[in-house]
């Protein structure tokens, strides 16, 4: 079989090549630099921790900090249904999602609504001054508590 560089072949190859490069380039361009998780940490001032409130919202509004008899734990504020930010209802003692009314107990377990998964408990650590920092990229077990020694 002999290959011949006819005008038709030349144009065809050129066109396909350009189309392939353009297609691949466009897809890679569009999916390229995505802004991933930029602010996924939340912050709780020391003074607020022992002010009497048992449910505290972080400064960034990303995490709920809950205090029970065993210690502190942090719950990612995103509703497990579609990602809206849940609110704490002081009267009913539960978290309520404003988008589709999912309801969670203070421990994060689903009480009602379309959500099928509990709220996600995330890692807590203290800085040197005694403030608490929650990192939503690290998931911890439900039973884990943070305590100042």
């Amino acid at each position: 079989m002999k290959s011949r560089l006819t005008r038709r072949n030349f144009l065809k190859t050129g066109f396909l090549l350009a189309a392939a490069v353009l297609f691949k380039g466009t897809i890679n361009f569009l999916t390229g630099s995505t802004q991933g998780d930029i602010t996924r940490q939340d912050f709780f001032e020391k003074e607020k921790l022992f002010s009497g409130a048992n449910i505290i919202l972080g400064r960034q509004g990303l995490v709920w900090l809950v205090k029970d008899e065993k210690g502190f734990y942090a719950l990612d504020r995103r509703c497990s249904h579609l990602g809206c930010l849940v609110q704490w209802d002081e009267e009913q003692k539960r978290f309520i999602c404003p988008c589709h009314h999912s309801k969670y107990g203070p421990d994060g377990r689903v009480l009602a609504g379309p959500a099928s998964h509990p709220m996600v408990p995330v890692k807590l650590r203290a800085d040197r001054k005694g403030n608490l920092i929650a990192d939503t990229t690290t998931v911890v077990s439900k039973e884990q508590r943070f305590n100042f020694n």
Partner: protein
Amino acid sequence: MAVIKKFIDRKELLRRELIAALVVTNTVFLLAVLLPVSLLADTTFTEMVPAPWIFAGIQLLLKYLPPLWAGIILPFGTAAFLISFPYLTKIWPVLTKASLWVIVTIIIIVTIVGHFIVF
């Protein structure tokens, strides 16, 4: 006595279109003056966030159905059904038309319930 013409020409058609455009423009202006859009203070919500009326139905479905069904399959399935409607009527004329009206009724009911009752 006015003579009713069977056909009108291009100029007359344009003139009538202009009148229609004028009426709708002034209607929108009137709406904008009488019911101006406000900007809600950007507070955090403690109760619920209602979707705009067009999406009230989908919001209601999302409350009771899995997200894949409420947010993807049902809305886009409806669009797919609409697209294939002229072709389906050729095969099943009565059934297709009946399903269209059933779907329309469901959409209207779900929208009204979502907008005025639930959210």
